[in-house]
């Protein structure tokens, strides 16, 4: 039974970890190749990986989405989408989608004259589900080996786990001081009742056993 408890705890933290990995910002050093806009059909469950614009009607299942095509330093392609996050989750408060589109188009460069940029994004790229990370900002950098230290992520995760730990420790202390003694009292009274029943049964059982041939 202990395995079940550990399995549930593990699954819970794996889920929390994946949500954090999806929503926290990452930086990619890429060369922007092109930008385009395409109509997307968002009528299945992968809708959760696309933004919900503030002014979109609830029943609309397709809309135009802007994309930014880029190539990494090792030559592999990566495509970002460019959508508003608005006032909702994840809380980037990105309203300047059109501006970002313009900036990205401005930074388009060719292979023989590359202009390397650092794209800050969140989300996952999955070819099977056709989901794209959402580009938040684009910044010009010196070369393809620009690799910044993720300060915000470090601070955020430290604060987050410190908070979780603080609450967990206080919950345990509260449980030990208030709830456990109460449960022990209840258990004691249950045991006492069990013993009393046992005693009564014991006499009848012994009389019955006296009839069995031993």
């Amino acid at each position: 039974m202990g395995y079940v408890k550990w399995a549930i705890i593990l699954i819970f933290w794996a889920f929390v970890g994946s949500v954090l990995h999806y929503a926290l910002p990452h930086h990619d050093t890429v060369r922007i190749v092109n930008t385009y806009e395409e109509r997307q059909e968002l009528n299945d469950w992968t809708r959760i990986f696309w933004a919900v614009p503030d002014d979109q009607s609830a029943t609309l299942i397709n809309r135009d989405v802007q994309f930014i095509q880029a190539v990494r330093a090792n030559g592999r392609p990566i495509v970002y989408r460019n959508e508003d996050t608005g006032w909702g989750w994840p809380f980037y408060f990105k309203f300047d989608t059109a501006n970002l589109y313009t900036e990205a188009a401005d930074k388009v460069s060719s292979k023989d004259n590359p202009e390397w940029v650092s794209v800050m994004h969140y989300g996952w790229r999955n070819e099977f589900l056709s989901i794209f990370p959402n580009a938040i900002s684009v910044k010009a950098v010196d070369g393809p080996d620009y690799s910044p230290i993720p300060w915000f992520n470090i601070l955020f995760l430290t604060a987050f786990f410190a908070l979780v730990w603080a609450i967990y420790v206080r919950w345990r202390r509260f449980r030990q001081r208030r709830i456990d003694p109460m449960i022990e009292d209840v258990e004691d009274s249950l045991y006492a009742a069990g013993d009393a029943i046992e005693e009564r049964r014991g006499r009848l059982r012994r009389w019955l056993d006296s009839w069995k041939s031993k």
Partner: protein
Amino acid sequence: MIALFRLLLVLLVLQTIAYVGLSLYSRSVRKGKLEAHWEKKDAMKGDKQAFVERGLQRYDQSFRRKLILGVYIVPWVAIVALIYIRNYM
């Protein structure tokens, strides 16, 4: 605009829950400290209950308690800062 109001409402509810929870927790920590202080000091005479009640009354009027209202202010400052950094820099 309606999404903004939705965010406002959800945030308000969460902030109120956090404010009430933090106030209760902070008050109980203060109570524990008062009781521990009374028991530690040999020079304490008189009723422990009265001492703790007086201490709690003083705490209720203190600045520290008003600081917990920061739970309402800090997220909004952070949101405004984020919007400025994200969209205008």
